[in-house]
């Protein structure tokens, strides 16, 4: 079963991080990714630009609306994702607990709803 970790955190915490701290941060996330890979559970991960760079688009009201900024203006913003493949939620939570961002943010863990083998109409 694929599980996605949504990493939320308060971006202002890292507004003035030194290059040294940034390098250390990359290193611990790198170590975490190495461990996920070596355990054979990592599907994908990404690290996002800060939320002020987001652009939000919708045709919901019938007309195209483009908003400069994130969809929800909350204190905790989405900062990255991990997708891992493990059999159950206990295993997913065990790995989420080891993610470096768990120490300064929140991790939302969601199971995939995609049919086995992917969407059959996707070709």
């Amino acid at each position, binding site marked *: 079963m694929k599980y996605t970790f949504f990493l939320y955190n308060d971006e202002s915490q890292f507004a003035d991080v030194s290059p040294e701290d940034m390098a250390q941060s990359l290193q611990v996330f790198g170590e*975490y990714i190495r461990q996920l890979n070596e355990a054979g559970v990592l599907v994908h991960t990404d690290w996002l630009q800060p939320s002020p760079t987001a652009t939000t688009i919708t045709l919901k009201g019938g007309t195209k609306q483009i908003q400069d900024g994130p969809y929800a203006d909350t204190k905790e913003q989405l900062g990255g994702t991990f997708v891992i493949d493990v059999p*159950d939620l*206990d295993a997913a939570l065990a790995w989420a607990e080891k993610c470096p961002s768990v120490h300064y943010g929140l991790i939302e863990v969601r199971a995939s709803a995609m049919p086995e083998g992917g969407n059959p109409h996707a070709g």
Partner: protein
Amino acid sequence: MSPSVTDNQAKARAEHVARAAYGRLIAILAKRSGDIAAAEDALADAFAQALETWPKNGAPDSPEAWLLTVAKNRQRDVAKSAANKTAAGSLDDESFKMNSMPTDTAKPHGQDIPDERLKLLFACAHPAIDSTVHTPLMLQTVLGLEANEIASAYLMPGATLAQRLVRAKRKIKDARIPFEIPDQSEIKSRLDGVLEAIYGAYSLSWQDAENVDVTRDLAKEALYLSTVVTDMLPEEAEALGLAALVALSMARRQARLTAKGVHIPTDQQNTALWDKMLIRRGETLLTRAAAQKAPGRFQIEATIQLIHCDRANSGLTDWAAIAQLYNGLIAFAPTMGAAVARAAAVGHAFGAKAGLNALATVDAGHANAFQPYWATAAYLHRMAGDESSAQAAYRKAIDLCTDLPTRKWLERIAQDKVASLH
């Protein structure tokens, strides 16, 4: 003073003093004001001064006393400057260096410097400080480790840990958490906090992290911290027990992994790789602890380690004794880990059925996400000849396991049996 000292020698001397004296000096500098951060700043300045002047003038006879004097002067200057912001001259100007340089005759000798580190340890592990910060706070203030270095051991960004350390130090200062050894009525419970935090440093050293920069061996640091406590409280049985536990587990560190980084269980390790000196040290500490006739969790855990270590002499592991000790441990600290380890020991000693009965006493609801529970269940099912239950339990244990050496070991033993069956 010898003016012929080279740059490198002075630097090596400064580093040696730093390693030996850092916590002693911080404890003294922070004790009166309760301001650890200011003490760290003052000591950092003193080290910078040392690196500048020792190569030129030679290292002083008592480097520790020299550093203490310079740092105290620095603290006084900072206090003065804060009291009188309009005073001429910045803290970094030349007059500071001239004024604060101790002369050779004015300083006390190193052995006259009191050791206040235990008081610092009690402040770091005070119940009013968030318990997750106790260990990092000790590693930083007593041993001088960098926040980034400590954070890496936790797979945590350094900036996050640094914020927590700043907050904890501010609280120690502003709430006036005392730098004192608690009185008799309180010392047992307060000491538990200190020992737990030292144990926390030790546990960190067992993690498998290849790429992060933890340059210091945290097991050694934990052993060192436990020695600070036993030196100053030589009759505290549990402090001796913790020091023994750290020494005995550390003794087996070279034997715990294969060349490919796969975990090797204690009863299968090559005993030739065990450190006999550390085992003797642990044994001595445990004997001293036992003389106090005040048993406790760390002493029991250390005794279990000692029985494992005895295989180096006898060739056998006395699992019945280990199972008995886990009974005792559960009486002091009824954790799921102890209950599961007891079931494994009972299985080793008395067979699969007894082991499975012991495992059945563990609350399966809580144990569902607990990897050692499934690894033990797998071991016992296999011993009972129920390989399909064993395979299911191994699968669950592997899926829950985020420690790579253990995960690889579980994968290997689960496979081994499958291969030998076909």
